[in-house]
């Protein structure tokens, strides 16, 4: 990406993404963390669009922003502690977390800044080549992933539906 406007757009989106990730990591309130995750995933979709990875940008918007973050929001709302602002998202061992953060960040940044700038491949639309690859060279992983999705769907429904601990126990009104 060269030129002023794409560079500014990149840094704006990067700032949005990092701010969102920092909100997830640091906010003491679960709902705020969830919406920060929303912002981070949205920023990532923008960066994919900026990288001219159009299919990845759309998939990120549909699956991550539209699907996973709504699912996370549901999980936040369905589990307890929403009323107890400030204590519903407890964190512990911040020193250990900080050590892990630095231990990962410093080598990763060292590697990142030793990268060559790279040469962009021409900005062709990627949807058709990805479709060709999915039904050509990658057809076996494609089928395996579809079976995995089916298994995950059935498994998740089965898990969330719950089961009775005792077959003789009568189903109670409020769940299970």
């Amino acid at each position: 990406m060269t030129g002023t406007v794409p560079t500014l757009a990149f840094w704006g989106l990067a700032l949005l993404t990092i701010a969102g990730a920092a909100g997830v990591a640091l906010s003491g309130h679960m709902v705020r963390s969830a919406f920060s995750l929303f912002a981070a995933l949205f920023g990532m979709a923008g960066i994919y669009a900026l990288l001219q990875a159009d299919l990845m940008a759309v998939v990120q918007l549909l699956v991550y922003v539209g699907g996973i973050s709504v699912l996370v929001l549901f999980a936040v709302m369905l589990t307890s502690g929403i009323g107890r602002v400030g204590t519903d998202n407890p964190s512990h061992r911040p020193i250990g977390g900080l050590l892990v953060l630095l231990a990962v960040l410093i080598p990763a940044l060292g590697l990142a800044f030793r990268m060559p700038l790279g040469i962009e491949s021409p900005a062709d639309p990627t949807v058709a080549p990805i479709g060709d690859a999915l039904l050509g060279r990658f057809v076996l992983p494609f089928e395996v992933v579809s079976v995995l999705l089916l298994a995950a769907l059935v498994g998740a429904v089965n898990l969330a539906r719950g089961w009775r601990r005792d077959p003789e126990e009568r189903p109670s009104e409020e769940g299970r």
Partner: protein
Amino acid sequence: MSVGLPHLMFLSAVLLALGLYTMVTRRNAVAILMGVELVLNAGLLNLVAFSRFGRGIDGQVFGVFGVVLAAAEAVVALAIVLQVFRAMRSVDASRADRMKE
């Protein structure tokens, strides 16, 4: 001014570190899952960046697979979290240490 691989790797490294920080410090299981999502996104950004600045489309194909796997992981993990919440009235990961009551 231009943006190249180092800048994308920088963003990816920060996301990875913040995701790991979230996973290490949180006690709420849903928050730990959010950390996992951040780490996965850092990895996906790497795949797309190397595909864009390298040759071929394979990185993005792999990225699409990665998103699908992340969706499957999130669905199953959140179902488990809801079930744990039903059983123990809490999503505190350090309290869910019994396989069976």
